[in-house]
């Protein structure tokens, strides 16, 4: 386990270095933040002065060296836009995203894993057919549209929930469901196919021949075997949602998470903030994947994570 974690730490460092380096160069090559920050009437001297104050006048390699030596100390510099350390801005937004994504995953798991299980027990039955077409519907529905529809029905028409913003738990409901419904379709599908696969395994026949009850076989034996692909998907969905998938939902519902911050950073051409954001997002992905691997090992003794 320790060897595994050490290995994971090492590969995580490599991944994050590559990701942040890519963002560093791409942002500098594709945009000119100085030009955008200045009014159109600004002179060349104004431009030069601002460029020098932001450190953007130096050679790209020098800039990169400064960036890396700062990043090692978790110092990404000050956000152009907000004038405070960029990492602080990102970390300040992280809990909101975390709250949204975990709420939506809980909803997705609680709602859709049992649904997928139930559908797998009678393949081709009415529940199965409804689930297969409904989850396809959920998958193909764009989040911005689904989110807008939910706002229209539950906030505008029924007036049960706030349209957007943050505050109490009532603000969390619609964005969490919007995220959950799209991930949920996939989770239900994977649960169904994984359960179907397991239900046809010989050990299930053995258990039935042993006279073990149906629900005992299902919950004590089959579910655990079916769990690996489900855990993989949940990890993927959460990592993906936290590292950017939530952008749309957070924007639609004006949820103050890192997804919305990313959109703001891009529109403000705040490359320092963007770098810190990407760094944190990559870190989240690495951490979630590591947790998923540890869970695999807990579920399946055959998994060799070292």
């Amino acid at each position: 386990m320790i060897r595994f974690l050490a290995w994971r730490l090492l590969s995580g460092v490599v991944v994050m270095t590559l990701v942040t380096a890519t963002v560093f160069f791409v942002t500098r090559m594709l945009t000119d933040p100085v030009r955008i920050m200045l009014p159109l009437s600004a002179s060349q001297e104004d431009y030069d002065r601002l460029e020098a104050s932001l450190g953007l006048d130096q050679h790209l390699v020098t800039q990169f060296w400064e960036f890396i030596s700062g990043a090692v100390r978790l110092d990404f510099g000050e956000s152009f836009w907000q004038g405070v350390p960029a990492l602080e801005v990102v970390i300040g937004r992280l809990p909101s995203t975390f709250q949204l994504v975990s709420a939506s995953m809980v909803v997705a798991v609680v709602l859709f894993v049992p649904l997928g299980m139930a559908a797998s027990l009678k393949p081709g039955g009415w529940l199965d057919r409804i689930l297969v077409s409904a989850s396809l519907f959920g998958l193909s529905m764009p989040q911005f549209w689904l989110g807008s529809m939910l706002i229209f029905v539950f906030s505008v028409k029924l007036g049960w929930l706030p349209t957007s913003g943050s505050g109490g738990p009532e603000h969390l409901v619609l964005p969490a469901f919007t995220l959950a419904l799209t991930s949920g379709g996939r989770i239900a599908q994977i649960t169904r196919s994984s359960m179907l696969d397991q239900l046809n395994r010989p050990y299930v026949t053995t258990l039935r021949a042993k006279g073990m009850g149906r629900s005992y076989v299902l919950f004590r034996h089959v579910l655990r075997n079916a769990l690996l692909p489900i855990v993989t998907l949940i990890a993927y969905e959460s990592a993906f949602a936290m590292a950017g998938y939530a952008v749309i939902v957070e924007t639609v519902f004006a949820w103050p998470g890192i997804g919305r911050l990313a959109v703001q950073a891009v529109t403000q051409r705040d490359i320092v903030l963007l770098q810190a954001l990407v760094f944190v997002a990559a870190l989240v992905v690495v951490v979630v994947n590591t947790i998923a691997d540890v869970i695999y090992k807990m579920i399946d003794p055959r998994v060799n994570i070292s």
Partner: protein
Amino acid sequence: MTEGFDSGQADHQILLSVADLAVDFDTESGIVHAVQDVSWSIGAGETLGVVGESGSGKSVTAAALMDLIPITGRVVNGTFIWHGDRVGSAELARLRGSKITMVFQDPMNALNPLVHVGRQITEVLVKHVNLSRSAARRRAHELLELVGIPDPSRRMRQYPFEFSGGMAQRVVIAMALAAQPEVLIADEPTTALDVTIQAQILDLMSELQKELGIAIVLITHDLGVVAGVADHLAVMYAGRVIERGRSADVFANPYHPYTRGLLASTPHPRDVIDRLVPIKGNPPVVTELSPGCAFADRCPEAHDRCRVERPPMSAVPSHPASETVVLRDREVACWNAF
């Protein structure tokens, strides 16, 4: 056709009988009659060999008994008799896993890969024998010792993937013996194992049978497997039993041309014969059965009647030279037998 099972095997107490079993399967090409009019019975402590090639319906019979028929199939007819009483599905469900247990073909896949071997045995004890967890663990330990697994305490905490095929089959046997069954159904118990291990497992099963007095239904395609161990044989072809009798009699004087073909195509360690004689052709597709004998198309001795009228199972003398017919002792479904 199947009345009075007790008459022929009066010297043994009949434990379990299957009578007139018929199982159908829905397939894309229509309804398949996987098993029809299948009857057999087994006495306490006996071994019944059910022999046939794949698709002959030998496993379906056991599956029907254990309620393991896949959802595409259903039992359309049949009676199960346990200790002389006809049992319905509810009573059968109570016997299943405790009094009637089963050992399967592929031991590595017959065990749940994620659950300790010990728990897969103790759960049977907790369910059927009402033992406490700790008593069940002690009993599982004894069972593993009984089936010849060294160091049971350590082995109980291991997972199936840490076992070899032969050792895993011993675990499956221990599991099947846990609730002290009276009948053990072994469906191709050695097919997935190495040849050397096969003999060990068969020896183990005979030893356990002697020690515990269980009846064994040994389902196999391999006559070599049943040769030494079965008291009675039922030979199946295309979903029907076509010959039945004491194992020694069937081996010495097979009546049915199919049984003869099966024996001729099986290597025998004692008689060094020049060559094995295969049975020509393939088993019929059970959707397109003729009204006659299912074997007629492959049978070297078939005549016109065989193709139009199905021969019923009829009592015959234990061997052709003898004139005494002991009812139910020896039966064959072939027009040429009488």
